[in-house]
């Protein structure tokens, strides 16, 4: 365990400062290229540059390469390559808006390195009751997990700072669960995700200077999913993501098909004259997590973000309780 302290510290420092120092020049570059979108929750024509994905993936690549130099584990390579492929999928979607089918298919392909590198165990562990052996079925779970985690983090990117802040909370609970289950190497491989998200949050928090874009959100979500698979904490990881899964569930339950949210016309929330978010009275509009949050009273964007963070903390607590329950057998 003690021999892992230096790789852990070095990779966290590299992860944090790569994103911390790379994001400001990226913001300048994106401004120069006029790659900006309107922040719809702000008065006036506030334009925010995107995507922040290149800074995020740079932090992940450098920190995981440092870890690989120390530990030389296939699991680290699998996390690294899968995250990079998710970045590519997201970046293509950032530059050229693709159809609703593109991201699930692209993310399924991004999951292949986990399989080819054999960086998984086909037992699916549950709290209290043990594990089920599902050798072939588990391959489907790998694809499913990567698609779900990537898309749910992308779909929770609904207000300034939410995706990165949510990822900080969820990844802290994921790392804590891995430490509780004494899976120390993967726990250390998961730490850069916390520090990459934290460094990006500095620029993404309200008022945002940069948006992560699909390339940033998919990269964070897929890295999270890859860690869950190689660390054999799939169920715990899903529990920590429950608010984001709830958001996706509400979306699918309302829309009843796989479609990109940009293709929908009816907006679930409206802006008040003082730029607070309130639920629309349009019965045809889909139900979303934000719509539920502002259903009874209009809230500012910052207040909505704070409610989502409280939900994330609640789920993180449930995930850590679940990690302790993994050690108990009925």
């Amino acid at each position: 365990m003690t021999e892992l302290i230096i790789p852990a510290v070095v990779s966290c420092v590299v992860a944090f400062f790569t994103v911390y120092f790379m994001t400001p020049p990226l913001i300048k570059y994106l401004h120069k290229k006029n790659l900006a979108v309107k922040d719809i929750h702000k008065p006036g024509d506030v334009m925010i540059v995107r995507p922040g994905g290149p800074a995020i993936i740079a932090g992940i690549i450098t920190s995981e390469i440092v870890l690989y130099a120390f530990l030389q584990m296939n699991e680290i390579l699998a996390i690294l390559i899968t995250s990079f492929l998710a970045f590519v999928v997201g970046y293509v979607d950032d530059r050229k808006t693709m159809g609703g089918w593109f991201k699930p298919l692209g993310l399924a392909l991004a999951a292949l390195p986990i399989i080819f590198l054999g960086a998984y165990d086909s037992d699916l562990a549950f709290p209290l009751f043990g594990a089920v052996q599902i050798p072939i079925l588990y391959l489907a779970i790998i694809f499913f997990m990567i698609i779900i985690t990537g898309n749910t983090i992308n779909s929770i990117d609904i207000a300034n700072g939410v995706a990165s802040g949510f990822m900080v909370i969820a990844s802290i609970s994921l790392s804590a669960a891995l430490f509780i289950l004494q899976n120390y190497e993967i726990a250390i491989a998961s730490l850069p995700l916390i520090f990459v998200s934290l460094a990006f949050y500095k620029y993404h928090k309200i008022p945002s200077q940069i948006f992560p874009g699909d390339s940033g959100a998919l990269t964070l979500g897929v890295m999270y999913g890859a860690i869950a698979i190689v660390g054999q904490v799939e169920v715990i990881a899903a529990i920590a993501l429950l608010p984001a899964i709830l958001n996706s569930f509400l979306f699918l339950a309302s829309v009843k098909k796989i479609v990109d949210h940009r293709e929908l016309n009816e907006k679930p929330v409206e802006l008040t004259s003082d730029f607070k978010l309130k639920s629309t009275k349009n019965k045809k509009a889909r139900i979303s997590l934000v719509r539920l949050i502002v259903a009874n009273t209009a809230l500012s964007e910052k207040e909505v973000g704070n409610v989502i963070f409280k939900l994330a903390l609640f789920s993180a607590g449930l995930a850590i309780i679940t990690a302790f329950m993994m050690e108990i057998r009925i």
Partner: protein
Amino acid sequence: MMHGPLFGFLFLMWVLIIIGGAIAVIILGPISISGYGTFDPWINSIVKGAVAIGLSILWVLILAKMKNLIFRKTFNF
């Protein structure tokens, strides 16, 4: 609390995951079909996959029912 139903719904999702895990271990775990030679692992997986999909659909249906119960009453949707 204004957002209590949201926390309650997350807690319900967690409970359903724990119960789903128990069902998966108790039902899926012991399934073992043999007598088909090299196809045994595939047939086992197909059967387990079908049961797992059935359980997932049931999980989503229960969640959808609970969503309607909790949020329609609270938020008048």
